[in-house]
């Protein structure tokens, strides 16, 4: 069954309704993550773009202004342009050390793209 038009509209409404969304407070309180036992507990991520999650959250909060009515895709382009104005794409800079490690160890990169910040446990 495919996503319906109403789902698309709802998605657009949710994403474009102003950030951050005020969701279930049981795992996030005033921007700080409450204990979420199972959250991201197994993988040892080698690189994340947000080495300093709090700083990035502040920067992102400024960067999202004016993008409220955009889709995820449009927002990604717009925000990256603000956060990484001199770079073609911010993620390349972030994963460069991991690419070097992969080359050295003869491994593949597992590149997980998501909408959310693993360091902030969703907050």
């Amino acid at each position, binding site marked *: *069954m*495919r*996503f319906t038009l109403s*789902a*698309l509209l*709802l*998605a657009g409404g*949710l*994403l474009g309704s102003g*950030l*951050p*969304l*005020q*969701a*279930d407070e049981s795992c*996030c309180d005033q921007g700080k*993550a409450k204990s*979420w*036992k*199972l*959250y*991201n507990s*197994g*993988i*040892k*991520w*080698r690189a*994340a*773009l947000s080495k300093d999650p709090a700083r*990035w*959250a502040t920067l*992102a909060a400024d960067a*999202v202004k004016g993008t409220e009515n955009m*889709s*995820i*895709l*449009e927002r*990604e382009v717009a*925000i990256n342009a603000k956060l990484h104005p001199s770079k073609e794409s911010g993620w390349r800079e972030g*994963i460069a050390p*991991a*690419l*070097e*490690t*992969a080359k050295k*160890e003869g*491994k*593949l*990169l*597992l*590149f*997980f*793209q*998501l*909408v*959310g*910040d*693993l360091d902030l446990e*969703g*907050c």
Partner: protein
Amino acid sequence: MRTVTFSNDKVAEQVNSKFIPVWYNRGQGFHNCEKSTEKWIFTSNTECYPTKNICTFFMTPDLEVVYYVSGYYAPDVFLDILAGVQKLQAAPKSMGRVHKEISAELTKRLEDLKTVGKNPKAVATGTGPLAPYGVCSYETIEHKHSIQCVHILNEAFRYRKEVHDSLVDHGTVPFDTVQHKYKFGNSFSEEAPVSTVADAPLSKPQAPVKASVRTGKSK
């Protein structure tokens, strides 16, 4: 993925030892920690939940994508995917052939699922082709197979096969190309239809729609 699959011991062991895992938030500033949606996804689409908000790419240091999957996959299903990627990694000069072999294997599994789908006892007991996809839990919820599992596994296999088939000719695809198709060339995306790409995109697994769908969430 964050609270079930990436927290699974077997998955973590495989990923940590065989791959270099990195993540990227493509929706900075988006607040997302709603447990009720996570629980709903787990209870209704335990084996696989199709969403384009999340995608896992397996790629070389030269940014050649060996394989990729869009959406959430339960630990056992994801371990299957990891095993396939490792087969590809072991045959760098003949990845097209390996893609073909995995595709053929998935075709067989799809056939097996057709059989088990007609056998309620096999579904209830999780035997036959469902057997490898059993143990899975989210907080206090333990998954038990139902007929829904047959449908969603069918979609997961079909989608995975489709991606493998798309890579048979060249073995890999440049990251920029696949990401461009993934983001821009997908008519069923919950994202804005801004496609300017002429070539046909891959389809994704289909899942039932929740009465009050909350997309824009990543699992």
